[in-house]
């Protein structure tokens, strides 16, 4: 039955790329005839790296972003996370823990800089007035998440000896 579905075919543009050789991503490993745009064999190194790099790399990459440098307690936890390889759960779960602590640091930072965090406005709940939404459901979900996070930490991370992971 499936074979009988060969289209008759009214679909606009059907089959224009049926020939594999016209597909830009085929084959996966393929050098570009036009070049990549790079006019260097090795790019210059960007300076001023002040972040962590993966253990799976010999050092920082040639360029990197500088959006938010690690700082405070979350920065210390991130430092710990980067002492594990990317292949371990400890690396990623520790980073997620740092992210949550970072949220609290963000609130403190806002207040100390004279910014009153708009907890409802930042969630975009202004637009709820225009559309009927189940706001209570979201509040319940968020509280469940907040209650479970410490449990996740203690059950899955704290008990284990990280060096065995």
């Amino acid at each position, binding site marked *: 039955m499936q074979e009988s579905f060969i289209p008759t075919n009214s679909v606009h543009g059907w089959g224009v790329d049926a020939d594999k050789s016209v597909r830009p991503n085929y084959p996966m490993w393929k050098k570009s005839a036009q070049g990549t*745009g790079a006019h260097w064999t090795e790019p210059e190194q960007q300076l001023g790296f002040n972040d962590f790099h993966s253990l*799976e*790399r010999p050092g920082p990459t040639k360029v990197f972003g500088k959006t*938010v440098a690690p700082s405070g307690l979350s920065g210390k936890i991130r430092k710990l996370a980067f002492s594990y390889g990317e292949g371990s759960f400890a690396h990623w779960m520790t*980073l997620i823990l740092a992210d949550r602590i970072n949220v609290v640091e963000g609130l403190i930072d806002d207040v100390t800089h004279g910014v009153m965090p708009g907890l409802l406005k930042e969630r*975009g709940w202004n637009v709820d007035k225009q559309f009927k939404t189940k706001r209570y459901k979201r509040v319940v979900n968020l509280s469940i998440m907040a209650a479970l996070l410490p449990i996740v930490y203690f059950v899955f991370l704290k008990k284990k000896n990280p060096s065995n992971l």
Partner: protein
Amino acid sequence: MEHRLQCSVIQVGTKEADMIATNYRGPYRIRADRNKSMPRMEHPNDAIIRVTRSLICGSDLHLYHGLVPDCRVGSVFGHEFTGIVEEIGSSVQNLKVGDHVVVPFNIACGSCLFCQHQLYGNCNETAPQSAAAAGFFGYSHTTGGYDGGQAEYVRVPFADVGPFIIPDDIDVDDAVLLADAYPTGYQAAEMAEIKPGDTVAIFGAGPVGIFAAKAAQWLGAGRVIVIDKEDYRLEFVKRFAQCEAYNFLEMDDPVLFLKRETDFLGPDSCIDAVGCEASGSKLQGILGVKMLIQAGSAVAVQWAINAVKKGGTVSVVGVYGPTANLIPLGNIVNKGITVRANQASVKRHIPHLIEHIRNGLIKPSEVLTHRVPLEEVADAYHLFSSKLDHCIKPVLIPPRAA
């Protein structure tokens, strides 16, 4: 202060060299601040670009919901944008000030082993924090810690490799979709290894799923079946890609549904265009989205593996965290499935996909449903995240875009 009560822009310490940029404050919390300092040149091949259009991507929602590790408070999001070149570094040759460009979401050096073979989504020289991921704009420190394009200005590293000058006959609203969603959808269909007449099932009718459905037709699929839970998106994709579309909330078991539809053999290829926040399984949702003990809810991949024909192909472009996920690995073996996946290599797709726009095969900007000022970014995220007002994709327009 009175202004602050009306919209979510914070005006504190505004200096002349400041700009408006999104500011991530924690899960489900984002705002636009006016006091972000202007981006600086950090490397001789950098360019500074004044953003003209910036999209919110489905994968930005994973950041917004706090599911991507090492996403730091204060980050600027946004990896789908177009803009005008304002400043170029000393070694930039392929761009000049004033060019209007679309910037691929991948940051690529153009010369590492992977870039040489056009795997620009896997560059080895742009994300120090992760050997697995490459550099992306505004997508946490796991992908390099770059500031994103949901801002008035953005620093674009390797300006000679990534940015593509928008041709005069291409509308900027169409061009901005070339930064991610449209090439990702196309590559999803290409990786599904579709042969003429094949049946293809696509999970997710968001922008990427919509473009994947369209591309599956171009690749010669005989039957394209899209599965989602939002009726308005299913209606849209049915019209846009001339395909079949079904709501899984109306099915007891979507895998069984696909088997019944295909003589109990399963589709030849399945595409996951959802990623780590898929609905459809309470267990996956609780473990992946609520408790974060797996890297997001892997329902779409689970369904794809179980539904696909033996010897078939599962193509994954949905974004998952790097930790681990619950998927039926045993059935990949039992069924002899090929799994193909990658971050789209945007740069290599752009010229081909522009030709399809020119030939009238597609008008990508049809997926843009909401135009929102950058200052109201919090509302745009909420609108998109909660699927309010039949939102498919919002586009942010910075005040200095014109």
